[in-house]
């Protein structure tokens, strides 16, 4: 009888690729769920949507969404999307990838896309480590956490992605956890209706790889941590948006209007061609 059951969101998924590869208790499925929720609320035209991802567990998300999708090489999702968005500004280009992909190997692209204010929407599932390769230390791994490459505790200071994105000039910056599904969905809807470079960090549980090395064996335990520690501080100072075992500052931090790169570019092209006529 379960067979007959059709989930209301199944039309947004590539059924042939289901079930997804993610572990039990992994937050990536929730990110996908919220993303689809937002698409559904806004009745986004899937024919004009491009989902781009990089490498890592969450990288598979592009394949799962029933829209045009591209699974790029490690760290290059944003660079790829820059090309796609500029080539066809009509497209809604969304990059969904991981903390390692976007901020270690892909960090440079992130910074410059934000600086240029290219109209792509970046959603980062931050699980504090490299899950797919077995749990190595990454750019967001909290100090002192244990990973397969920091067996004695991490001594590298993690990025505050919110602060970074805001500093690079993103027009919208938000952080939620996978427990804040409603607000996350709300934020995704917001960025899908916004011009310019937008960034949403989703703090996401990785119980099997990160959690079990750091005294949180199940997704539930990690979600309970989110519930316990999260405080919504909308539009508070991004530099103070800490993530610690005691406190996870979540909320919308930046939401400003700024003309996108592609609009400036195409306006410029138009002007240039006006001038040419006068010649």
């Amino acid at each position, binding site marked *: 009888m*379960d067979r007959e*059951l059709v*989930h*209301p*969101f*199944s039309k947004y*998924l590539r059924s042939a690729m*289901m*079930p*997804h590869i*993610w*572990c*039990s*208790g*992994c*937050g*990536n*499925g*929730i990110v*996908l*769920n*919220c993303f689809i*929720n937002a698409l559904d609320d806004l009745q986004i035209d899937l024919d004009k949507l491009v989902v781009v991802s990089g490498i890592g567990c969450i990288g598979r998300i592009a394949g799962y969404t029933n829209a045009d999708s591209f699974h790029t090489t490690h760290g290059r999702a944003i660079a790829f999307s820059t090309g796609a968005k500029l080539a066809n500004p009509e497209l809604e280009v969304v990059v969904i990838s991981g903390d390692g992909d976007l901020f270690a190997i892909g960090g440079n692209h992130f910074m410059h896309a934000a600086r240029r204010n290219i109209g792509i929407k970046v959603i980062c599932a931050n699980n504090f480590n490299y899950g797919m390769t077995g749990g190595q230390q990454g750019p967001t791994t909290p100090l002192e956490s244990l990973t397969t490459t920091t067996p004695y505790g991490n001594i590298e200071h993690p990025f505050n992605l919110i602060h970074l994105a805001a500093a690079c000039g993103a027009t919208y910056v938000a952080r939620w956890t*996978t*427990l804040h*599904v*409603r607000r996350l*969905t709300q934020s995704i809807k917001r960025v899908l209706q916004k011009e310019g470079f937008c960034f949403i960090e989703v703090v996401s549980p990785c119980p099997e790889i990160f959690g079990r090395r750091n005294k949180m064996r*199940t*997704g*539930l335990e990690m*979600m*309970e941590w989110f519930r316990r520690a999260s405080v919504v501080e909308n539009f508070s100072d991004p530099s103070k948006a800490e993530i610690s075992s005691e406190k996870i500052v979540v909320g919308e931090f930046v939401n400003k209007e700024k003309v996108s790169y592609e609009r400036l570019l195409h306006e410029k092209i138009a002007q240039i061609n006006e001038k040419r006529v006068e010649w």
Partner: protein
Amino acid sequence: MPERIKHPPLDSKKVKPPNAEIHIIKDQCKGCGFCIQFCPKKVLEESQEINARGVPPPKVVNEGGCVICSFCTAVCPDFAIFVVEKPLEEDVKT
């Protein structure tokens, strides 16, 4: 404000939460337990059975308590649960 009446509201038969029909796609469940844990009305529990993926999917223990906030649907990483409102005529029958 003064003490509330000691009887149910006069309109309690008319005004009540919608009738929920909870669907669990058992074999799609990976048993993370989010739906059970975060249901505000404690409608779900872990079942005894083991599904195709070798985990116990949730079972409905209090469908009447469900108010269709659909948080379970929203927080499920595996698209394994969703809730619809029971049509009224069925409402009458039962």
